[in-house]
């Protein structure tokens, strides 16, 4: 169970923000092609930053809290998921704010 700790933290982020999609009708998951088109470049850029940090020993992960699935560059699977989950949470938050305050225009 301890090995699932990081994954469970990410799962809590997904579940915690999920009501925004249904209660406030943020339509973020509903617009999944646009969501994917946003997430891919973000995951590539910040994944590269993560790989640099791992390679230079700027930071490292305790394998005791990880599932043990490691991607090329010693990147834990959870880190790749982090770069998909957290940006999605940020988009859901922005769209929730826009849903509640439609007069706060952007672009």
């Amino acid at each position, binding site marked *: 169970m301890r090995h699932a*700790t*990081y994954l469970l*933290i990410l799962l809590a*982020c997904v579940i*915690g923000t999920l009501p925004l999609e249904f209660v406030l009708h943020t339509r973020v998951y509903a*617009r999944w092609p*646009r*969501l994917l*088109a*946003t*997430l891919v*470049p*973000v995951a590539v*850029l*910040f994944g590269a*930053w993560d790989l*640099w*940090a791992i390679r*230079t*020993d*700027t*930071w*490292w*992960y*305790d394998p005791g*809290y*990880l599932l043990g699935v490691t991607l090329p560059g010693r990147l834990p699977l959870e880190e790749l998921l982090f*770069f998909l989950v*957290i*940006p999605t*949470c*940020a*988009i859901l*938050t*922005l769209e*929730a*704010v*826009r849903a509640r*305050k439609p007069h*706060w*225009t*952007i*672009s």
Partner: protein
Amino acid sequence: MNYTLTAGLGVLLAILIDCLALRTMLLRRKAFWVAYAIVLFFQLIVNGLLTGLEIVRYDPDRILGLRLVYAPVEDIAFGFAMVLITLSLWVRLGAAGERRGRR
């Protein structure tokens, strides 16, 4: 290059993307700052868990050493850059979709 320097460069890149490359100008929008404040609150909790439990650990020689809820302050810059670039892309792609008559 240490984490402090790359975190600063990350914020600079995010600002350039928002203001010049994609011209979304989210930094001038109230909706962005309110959303960012909410994200930051939850970042302190999630990042606090990741660093407090020591799921991730940092080389003390490659960070300033200033910490906020267990996490190095550099993580705040990393998070800000990630949120701003994400939202700038999302908004730009939305505007592009609407011009083509889609949502």
